């Protein structure tokens, strides 16, 4: 199993009051599987994604990614897991502004220590970025930046891809094209994808959909 969550709970303190965002979430995701995570704003979708990526820690329950127990892992182990096994696609792209497209694309693969130039070149071609390799993020449109962010994630060949509304900033046609590509590449690499989305249309295109409401998941 690529991702496994058991009775995961998370409580935040907001304005001095505890707010229980997740109340015992269970979820499993296998290789080649694509799962859409939907829910209303503030329902805890991003929090759940952050817990799966080891960016935040659960208060209760158990999380396992690619055989690694996140609950017991220290910061260094979590960082290593993010480097090697997990790929994150952020809603805000989070590209490195001082690096050009080519360097951004290769960045995570280099960080993980397995850069594959041919694979990165192929990714750039398929994402339509080949002519933009020398540009800097500030010189790109939102859609182009999002494609670079997806390419950066896929270049490292992660086992698990966690995407937070990756097409939220794109028009429908571009969003569809990007999702097509992502699913294609996930299938080729035998990876797993957990994608947060507000769009029922996009959610329907993934192999499974789970809905977060009241801090619990419903299929």
């Amino acid at each position, binding site marked *: 199993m690529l991702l496994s969550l058991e009775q995961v709970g998370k409580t935040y303190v907001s304005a001095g009051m505890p707010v229980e965002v997740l109340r015992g979430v269970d979820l499993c995701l296998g290789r080649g599987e694509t799962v859409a995570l939907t829910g209303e704003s503030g329902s805890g979708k991003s929090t759940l994604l952050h817990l799966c990526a080891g960016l935040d820690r659960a208060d209760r329950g158990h999380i396992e990614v690619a055989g690694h127990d996140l609950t017991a892992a220290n910061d260094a182990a979590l*960082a290593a897991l*993010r480097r090697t096994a997990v790929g994150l696609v952020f809603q805000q792209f*989070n590209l490195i502004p001082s690096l050009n497209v080519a360097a951004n694309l290769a960045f995570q693969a280099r*960080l993980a220590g397995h850069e594959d130039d041919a694979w990165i070149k192929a990714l750039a071609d398929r994402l339509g970025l080949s002519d933009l390799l020398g540009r*800097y993020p500030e010189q790109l449109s939102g859609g182009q930046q999002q494609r670079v962010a997806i390419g950066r994630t896929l270049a490292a060949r992660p086992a698990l891809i966690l995407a937070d509304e990756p097409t939220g900033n794109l028009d429908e046609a571009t969003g569809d094209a990007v999702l097509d590509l992502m699913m294609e590449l996930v299938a080729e690499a035998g990876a797993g994808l957990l994608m947060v989305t507000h769009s029922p249309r996009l959610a329907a295109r993934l192999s499974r959909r789970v809905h977060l409401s009241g801090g619990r998941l419903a299929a």
Partner: protein
Amino acid sequence: MRRTALSALLSHWRRHPLQLVSLLLGLALATALWSGVQAINAEARASYDRAAQVLGQDRLEQLVPSDGQRFSQDVYVTLRRAGWIVSPVVEGRWFRAGHSVQVYGIDPFTAPQGTLPGAVQAGGGIVDFITPPGQAYAAPQTVADLAGQEGLPPLIAAEGMVPGILFTDIGIAQDLLRAPGRISRLLLAQGQPANRPPLAQIAPGLEPRAPQEQADVAQLTGSFHLNLTAFGFLSFAVGLFIVHSAIGLAFEQRRPMFRTLRALGLPLRTLVGLLAAEVMILALIAGLVGIALGYVIAAALLPDVAATLRGLYGATLSGGLSLRPSWWLGGLAIALAGAGVAAAQSLWRLWRLPLLAPAQPRAWARASARGLLRQGGLAAVLAGVAVLAGVFGQGIVAGFVLLGAMLISAALALPGALAVVLAGAERISRGVLAQWFWADTRQQLPGLSLALMALLLALSANIGVGTMVSSFRMTFTEWLDQRLPSELYVTARTEEEAARLRDWLTPRSDAILPIWKVEGPVLGQPAEIYGVADHRTYADNWPMLRAEPDVWQTLARGEGAIVNEQLWRRERLSLGDPVPLPGGVERPLVGVYSDYGNPRGQVIVGLADLVAQFPDLDRRRFAIRTDPAKVPELRAALVADFGLPQDSMIDQVTVKQISLMVFERTFAVTAALNVLTMGVAGLAMFTSLLTLSTMRLPQLAPVWALGLTRGRLARLELGRAMMLAALTMVLAIPVGLLLAWVLLAVVNVAAFGWRLPMHVFPGDWLWLGALALAAAGLAAAWPAWRLARIQPTELLKVFADER
């Protein structure tokens, strides 16, 4: 992983070269000013150390006269006969034609092993050395300075010798110093025979003196070097503001990158380590540049410092500047330490930063009332420290603690004070644009506060030091008029000539006032003891600070002594206290006079009293009172009738000119450091405004969209910078005046022993204010010009990026 992450971190500088330049320049300038001052100090210390080693006085015991006067060489013969292994030395200053040199006369046959400079020992030709006209060894620089001077033995340049001194045979030196048969002290060889008779029995006028590790001059000049160090440190601190600002900004701008790097799997420890390494690498580069610049600054300032030390203390520095490892390693260390201090806060924040914290550049450009309050609290604490140091502190260190605490306190309080002023302006402003202007300015304060604090420090230092120097100049000029009332000063070549001159001058002048003095220990420190004639010149002119009635008559009767301010303060004397003179006589203190520019204690007694105590004193110098119009005629007559060389006479005007020149050179270094510090503060303003301007677009774009032209926005930005500089200048005036008061009433008293009255010079403030406005205007001009020319598409991006 580390290489990839480091390349991403460093790529920031590639994209922001100006920021990199400002960081490197700030640190390089800070290091340069600090290490330049340190280079000068190191050079001076090395000179003093070499001076301390002259004749092995740093390791050999000596026999010195208890009254400080030269004694007969018969005493030496008696001691040798009694079995004491001693070697005679005569020393003194040789003056001629505006040149002077310290002469050491030695006996090459009895001088202990290793006491003579290598060149003298290796020179060979002992017969030439001891036979008239003899030979004199000196540093090449000194030989060059004395070239062509009559009356000196042939000079031989010897490398490695201390400049400003001359070694020759004791007999030759006795002639040069006009001290036949007299010696100054005796060197005691190590390993004296055990059964020799006690000193008190055979030479009761002598006393043993332990080896001295420090030359007298090193002790005298300590305060001067401390002053220089303090100024260097102030410049360094101002430079650090730039570094802190540039590093803080670079960290804030890269916060999103840090979050991304960590999200992509870079461990926090590695990230912090890489950033620390990055800062250290940059500090190393800037440090090396700074040391090179510091060398240039030191080389440029050294002649002025050397002139100051020579003028004030008679200390001679070698003209060249050496690259001492201790100095450049110290410079690098201070650059690294400075960058470390400047980066520590940012690194600590990053260490504590939660991974999921908002990635937008944070409070850097956002007002933080709590931060201002905290800073204000720290300012209050430091102000308390300053008050405590002022009330309870003693000495120069307490003076500098007071100065440092006061300046830092004022700098820390500045953003809060400006925020209060701006909030007040916002409340009373009516128009919508004016309200936006004041509110927006207040929001810019945290981003600009470091630069404004640097500006405050530089302006305060300028006002404070400027006030001190101008007060000093005014007082010194008046004092010179009082202290140099005589129209002509003459030094005869021999005592007989002096007697003949006095006879000749008596009918041709209003008065002849002998300037006779001896040197010797007073209250444990070297001092000069002058005798003063009974003449109304002194009663009319002498700059007395306090005196008993009929002070001059009391001196004339030989019933009292007056001392200079530095001796009076150092020994905390009161009128009526006994003043012990060399030789054991005491006179009650009847007055205190100001004596600026003299580091040593000075005592004045009646002339007859002095001659009675020291019958062997040098009687060749005297001052002449006459009609100033007759001075040229008198000089010509003295040359024609007595063959007196021109350089044996000096008129009042020339003495004053020389004194003022020494004064101006003394403060030339201070003025140069002042200008450099202002330059550094101007640069801090420029870099802060430039970097802020890149972060200003989200705040300016909506105002532009609402109908303000880019040109008008640019003018407002320019006006804002100048208004903040003007406010800072206004606040700097009281801080600067306080600084001047501390310098005049605390530091000067502790460092030099004299206190000066404070005068204020509002005209200088206007000039400085104009300079500050010009600096701020220049600093803001480029960012404002860029804003005026910015493409609308750039402004529209602000809205496009909003989500």
